């Protein structure tokens, strides 16, 4: 239904009703911004990238064939713009591989998290996400937070379906290990 609504508004814009584009912006701006933010990790840059992506989408609207969802097409533009931005800025994301293997399960991590203050919980989870690589952060947003399908994520990122699955598997492991490590440090304090 939402997809058909998007197509309706796209056709409305193409027919000359520019104001209809605002509906599409309001509907998709949050996720577009979050995808950019997870990749570039700078709020102002993420807003600028998201805005540029929307402008580009508006100018290229005639090339949208409708063979994918409008959201998938749009987020692909955002994703590519954010990745290009990181390459231009030559941002380096080094990973400190000091993760400690543990036997703790995810449920136990959840239980440990529950014992910590809400603000601290959010901070820990955000820290764990920020330790991921930029494209991994975007995958976390797309798959775990927004519950996009693997196929949609493949279209957005340009990665193959199997590549997406492998990356998600690695992300799970990294998050799990980082949170476990932070729990250990939190309990020692």
């Amino acid at each position, binding site marked *: 239904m939402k997809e058909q609504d998007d197509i309706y508004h796209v056709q409305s814009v193409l*027919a000359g009703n520019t104001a209809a584009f*605002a509906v599409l912006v309001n509907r998709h701006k949050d996720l577009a911004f979050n995808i950019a933010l997870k990749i570039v990790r700078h709020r102002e840059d*993420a807003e600028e990238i998201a805005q540029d992506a929307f402008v580009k989408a508006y100018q290229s609207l005639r090339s949208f064939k409708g063979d994918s969802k409008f959201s998938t097409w749009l987020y692909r533009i955002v994703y590519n713009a954010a990745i290009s931005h990181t390459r231009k800025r030559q941002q380096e994301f080094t990973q400190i591989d000091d993760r400690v293997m543990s036997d703790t399960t995810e449920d136990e991590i959840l239980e440990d998290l529950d014992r910590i203050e809400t603000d601290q919980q959010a901070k820990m989870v955000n820290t764990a996400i920020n330790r991921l690589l930029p494209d991994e952060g975007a995958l976390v947003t797309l798959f775990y937070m927004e519950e996009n399908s693997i196929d949609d994520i493949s279209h957005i990122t340009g990665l193959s379906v199997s590549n997406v699955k492998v990356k998600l598997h690695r992300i799970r492991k990294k998050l799990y290990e980082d949170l476990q490590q932070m729990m250990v440090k939190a309990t020692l304090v």
Partner: protein
Amino acid sequence: MVTKELQNDEAIRRILSRTKPEMPSDDFTSRLMERIEAVPEPAKGWMIRYQWMVLLSSFAIAIFLLFFPIWTWFGFEFTPGQFLLYYAAEGFRLLSVWLGEALSHLGGMGKMMYLLPVSVAILLLVALDQSVKRPVHKTTQA
């Protein structure tokens, strides 16, 4: 294995639910729409921009060429009206001959004539399928 993965994914989602997604600034949409309004429409090709001029010019040239041969190079002695009538009659005659020949060929096809309405039916079905695939939306006034 798949069930374990699903369980792990669900656990990760519950963990990540401890954090809320960031929101863009409140004026994100308004600022963006200001930029959109300022964006010029994509440049159209010159033939589309000046399509009416091109059509009228082509029509004028076509009319001119119908009369031009009469007056100069080809040495025809027709008046303008006679020239047009002559070629209209000649065109009609050639069309009649072609139609007659085509229909006589069709008559010789025998049982293969069945292919003709079948082909037309298939073409119509394809056209219907294509038109049904396109979503039809009624535009409403805001």
